[in-house]
């Protein structure tokens, strides 16, 4: 790590310092305003939310970085993952742990296949037309939402019980915390590290990172970049689908799930810096924790979560004013 920081540009070092100071501020203000017990619960919930947002935003960021496509259908992948996972979890007659595993499998496989069909069949012909891609993915998001509503109905699906393995609570510093939320945090961290290792330690990852910088040059080196595009698009879809299914035992499945997470993911990608994986990971923590703290604060002071939505948008505006390319995005040369 010291070597990592030594190689950073002053701007990146400043970004890290700002992030550390801001996260410390959030912890401090939670402790002061909520007291130890509620602060712990709020920050724990914020961490869980951070990981869910990360699953959606990392795919959005990678797809944007490599393909130059701002994929407005990413939220719909969360939705499809949640509903397919919900249906599978409810219908498979195995132990709850195996049913949940089957639901995860069904969600990620079906959303992955959906992503592959969309990328190869619809987005690929429009690589040279970015405006059309925006319209296309926006339209796809609306179509998928409509399809889900027709198949599963408009009524919200209530949360299902978490699998046996992750039920109950555990105690940390005298506070009772949900094991299932810990599972989501752990899953998010494992995927964060795994995708990080993929990008930094494998040839495929090096090709993806190179492609984010200049996909045309990667082709000129003899690499079939279209296959890499498909892989990244499918990976992004799979991670969003995974976020959808793991949400089911926590908050059920509702039709506004996709848009909720799409907005959060876009904010994360903008704050972190378009196309920067590192920035997306860091910004996920910032947005998730900010939202949780703002929600708790507004519940306490206004008896309604009025600050929750606006807080992250204000945060995004402030970051863009201070650093227009985001915390870890590359400045235009």
């Amino acid at each position, binding site marked *: 790590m010291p070597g990592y920081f030594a190689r950073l540009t002053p701007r990146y070092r400043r970004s890290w310092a700002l992030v550390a100071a801001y996260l410390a501020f959030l912890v401090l203000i939670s402790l002061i305003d909520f007291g130890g017990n509620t602060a712990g619960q709020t920050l724990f919930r914020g961490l869980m939310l951070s990981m869910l947002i990360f699953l959606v935003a990392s795919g959005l960021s990678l797809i944007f970085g490599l393909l130059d496509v701002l994929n407005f259908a990413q939220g719909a992948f969360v939705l499809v993952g949640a509903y397919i996972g919900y249906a599978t979890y409810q219908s498979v007659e195995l132990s709850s742990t195996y049913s949940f595993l089957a639901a995860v499998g069904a969600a990620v496989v079906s959303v992955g296949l959906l992503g592959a069909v969309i990328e190869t069949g619809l987005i690929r012909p429009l690589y040279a037309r970015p405006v059309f891609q925006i319209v296309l993915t926006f339209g796809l998001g609306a179509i998928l939402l409509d399809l889900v509503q027709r198949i599963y109905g408009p009524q919200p699906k209530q949360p299902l019980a978490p699998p046996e393995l992750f039920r109950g609570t555990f105690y940390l510093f005298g506070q009772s915390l949900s094991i299932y939320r810990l599972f989501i945090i752990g899953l998010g961290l494992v995927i964060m590290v795994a995708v990080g290792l993929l990008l930094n330690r494998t040839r495929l990852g090096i090709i993806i990172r190179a492609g984010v910088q200049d996909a*045309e040059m990667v082709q000129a080196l003899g690499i*079939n970049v279209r296959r890499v595009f498909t892989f990244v698009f499918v990976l992004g879809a799979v991670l969003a689908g995974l976020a959808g299914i793991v949400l089911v035992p926590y908050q059920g499945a509702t039709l506004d799930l996709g848009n909720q997470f799409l907005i959060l993911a876009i904010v994360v990608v903008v704050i972190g810096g378009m196309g920067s994986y590192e920035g997306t990971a860091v910004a996920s923590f910032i947005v998730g924790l900010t939202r949780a703290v703002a929600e708790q604060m507004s519940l306490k002071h206004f008896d309604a979560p009025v600050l929750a939505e606006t807080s992250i948008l204000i945060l995004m505006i402030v970051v863009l004013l201070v650093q227009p390319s985001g915390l870890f995005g590359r400045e235009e040369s």
Partner: protein
Amino acid sequence: MTGPAAAPNHGAGAPPLLDVEQIHTFIGEFHILQGVSVQVPRGSITVLLGRNGAGKTTTLRSIMGLNPPRAGQIRFAGQSIHRLRPHQIAQRGIGYVPEKRIIFRDLTVGQNLQIAERQKGDLARKADLIFGLFPDLHRLYDLPGGHLSGGQQQMLAIARALVPDNALLLIDEPSEGLAPVLIEQMMDAIRRLSAHTTVLLVEQNFQVASRLAEHYVIIEEGATVRAGRMADLVSDKQLIKTYLGVA
């Protein structure tokens, strides 16, 4: 060679390694190349000359398939390549060093080289050649590409094209933006690497090009207007003045 339609073969009867025949390339609605012909003899350095905007860079990009021609033929080692995609053209054995020396700034020097491997072990096999030509790259191996100076980035861009077994290198403006001492080093490196591979070069600096290349092709307004041996061009001051604006 006296006309645009038929660039001659300078390879003493041997078929050229690269034969570009009357290509027409459009970028958007602009008809950029309007009949470019280039023949590159095997084992030589050939330079594309011409004023700014003549179509030299577009010619290299057309050969690589990055701006594919709408009409005309491109044959490499006797096989037609103009309908292939860029990665397929590269896999046939053509390396490309673009004008803006595009290196991957976030990847280390080592990763910039590794990514060019077409077969596992390419870099290890070529290490002596690459680090012999560009010793600085060995020292800078673990540094991100974005930390290199302009000259070092140019070296890295050329070294990257040397990693796989390329029979032809397309090098666009290697001296652009470099200090005179670095231009000399770069030219020396290109001269030495030409012992291993054929080179088609775009070079705006006629003094540099004339010392380096054995053959030339002049492009004007998107079409080939002259081609021949560099020695003949150097002795024809009127031709140089007419097409290159150099006294």
